[in-house]
């Protein structure tokens, strides 16, 4: 089975994240990059499926040069090879542009299964997996907390507000995973060393047959009009519990008409 796992480098949540004043995009240079946490579950799931069914795991990322750190981590976990979609023309692409570029790259790579995290911790739009399924014309098996493959058929459990749906489809398909579907492995020393020798192919816009007029900030389907740091919340009232803390909190809730 030919599995492509899409990973994204995101700013470490623990650092202060900013938008650039010049073009209002995320300032990726100012912060440490880490692998998007939900994508680690995607890598683990891809590796488990490969272990069970054979085949190959290819890592695909789109991002600036710095994103190679994220590729190395996925390779160190055990993926076989990687494709880095990298081009200045892609900077500032919104979800529509990104999904278009990724879909073009995926068509070029070829796949039985695409796996990715259900959202990224930076933009948190949660739309990319559905957009990829739409663009690739493959079944959308998203928000999975369980994945089973049997030959060319695939079953998932899709988490919902009321519980979960059991969903069935045929490969090729796009799967997005949620937290806790598995326990992502830590790269071993051997894995880290081996990752240095694994092939990483770079693809530019022209290589992936991406129409440059459909990607990048100027072609985005949406734009940031303005932004500002959130005003600090007005300092609240903090009391120490002296046996009456619950009653005092109730007074506060009553003053706000919650009770």
């Amino acid at each position, binding site marked *: 089975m030919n599995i492509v796992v899409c990973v994204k480098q995101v700013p470490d*949540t623990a650092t202060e*994240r*900013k*938008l650039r004043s010049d073009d209002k995009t995320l300032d990726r240079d100012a912060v440490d990059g880490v692998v998007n*946490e939900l994508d680690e579950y995607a890598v683990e799931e891809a590796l488990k499926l490969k272990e069970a069914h054979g085949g190959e795991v290819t890592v695909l990322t789109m991002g600036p040069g710095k994103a190679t750190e994220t590729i190395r981590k996925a390779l160190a976990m055990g993926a076989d090879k990687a494709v880095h979609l990298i081009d200045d023309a892609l900077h500032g692409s919104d*979800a529509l542009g990104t*999904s278009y570029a990724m879909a073009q790259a995926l068509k070029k790579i070829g796949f039985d299964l695409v796996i990715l995290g*259900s959202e990224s*911790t930076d933009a*948190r*739009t*949660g*739309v*990319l997996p*559905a*957009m990829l399924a*739409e663009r690739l014309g*493959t*079944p*959308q098996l*998203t928000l999975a907390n369980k994945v089973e493959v049997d030959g060319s058929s695939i079953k998932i459990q*899709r988490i919902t*507000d*009321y*519980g*979960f*749906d*059991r*969903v*069935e*489809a*045929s490969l090729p398909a796009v799967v997005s995973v949620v*937290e806790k579907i598995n326990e992502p492995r830590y790269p071993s020393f051997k894995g880290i060393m081996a990752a240095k020798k694994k092939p990483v192919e770079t693809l530019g816009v022209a290589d992936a047959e991406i129409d440059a007029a459909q990607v990048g900030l100027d072609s*985005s*389907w*949406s*734009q*940031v009009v303005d*932004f*500002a740091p*959130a005003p600090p*919340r007005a300092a*609240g*009232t*903090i009391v*120490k*519990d002296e*046996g*009456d*803390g*619950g*009653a*005092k*909190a*109730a007074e*506060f*809730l009553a003053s*706000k008409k*919650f*009770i």
Partner: protein
Amino acid sequence: MSEILVLVEQVDGEVKKVTLELLTLARRLGTPAAVWAGPGYTPEAKAKLAEYGAETIYVAGSEEITGYVVAPKAEMLAQLVGEKSPAAVLVAATAEGKEVAGRLAVKTDSGVITDAVGLGDGFVAEQSIFGGGVNVQAKVSRGIPIVAVRPNSTAPEAAAGAGAEEEVSVSLSDAAKSARVVERVKQEKGARPELTEAAIVVSGGRGVGSAENFSVIEGLADALGAAVGASRAATDAGWYPHQFQVGQTGKTVSPQLYIAAGISGAIQHRAGMQTAKTIVAINKDPEAPIFELADYGVVGDLHQVVPQLTEEVDKRK
């Protein structure tokens, strides 16, 4: 004024509150038209949608619409967009709502904005990003605006609309029917409201101490008619089911009132609750970062404070 399509969210035929909020928003910006997707449409649903301002109700009642993952809803909406040329499409910013919005955006070559917490003239949407640290105004610049709006972004206000029904028949493509839902498993959640939609959320964290002790959190939630949430520390410890986790990798909530008990307030948690209108924190540690956000904070042991609060709430009912 031009029509604004609102995709109805419903459970077993009952219209969810977020849909009434979206109709209220749509009324300020155009003529609201509700879109019903799938079976279960009833006279009660019609009455509710009209009560909150739907001038037209498009009913796509085919079972096929909900028999497959997301794609049929997007295809049906794309067909309506083509026929009616609406000024905008509003959906609820639930996990599935956003997926519908994403596919619809691709189909109609239109921009999409997710997790709006407000929507103003010219469909300029307000968003709160980076765990609530930055406020953004964004708008769609290509195609028609498709906006996924978070529950509790506005208070629903009734204002009668005509509620004229129009049936929508859709012939779905094979691609839209490729991920088949073979079973829906409903997990018992009792009488509590849904976490992402609840007006009040009571969450417990590390300070709760055990799975058994979550009954303290549930007691307060039930007294307030609230949903129960949990921090990642609590779900990782196995004290509360993972689907109730509030935070960066879990659910994002935006309630009128958020009560955090025994939660320190790390950035990962704040990312899931910072847009709550009023925040109350109960924590033993006076240095806990959650107190920086709190409108009201009690420094104390939640095992003492929360039961007392529950008792007071019950008394005042």
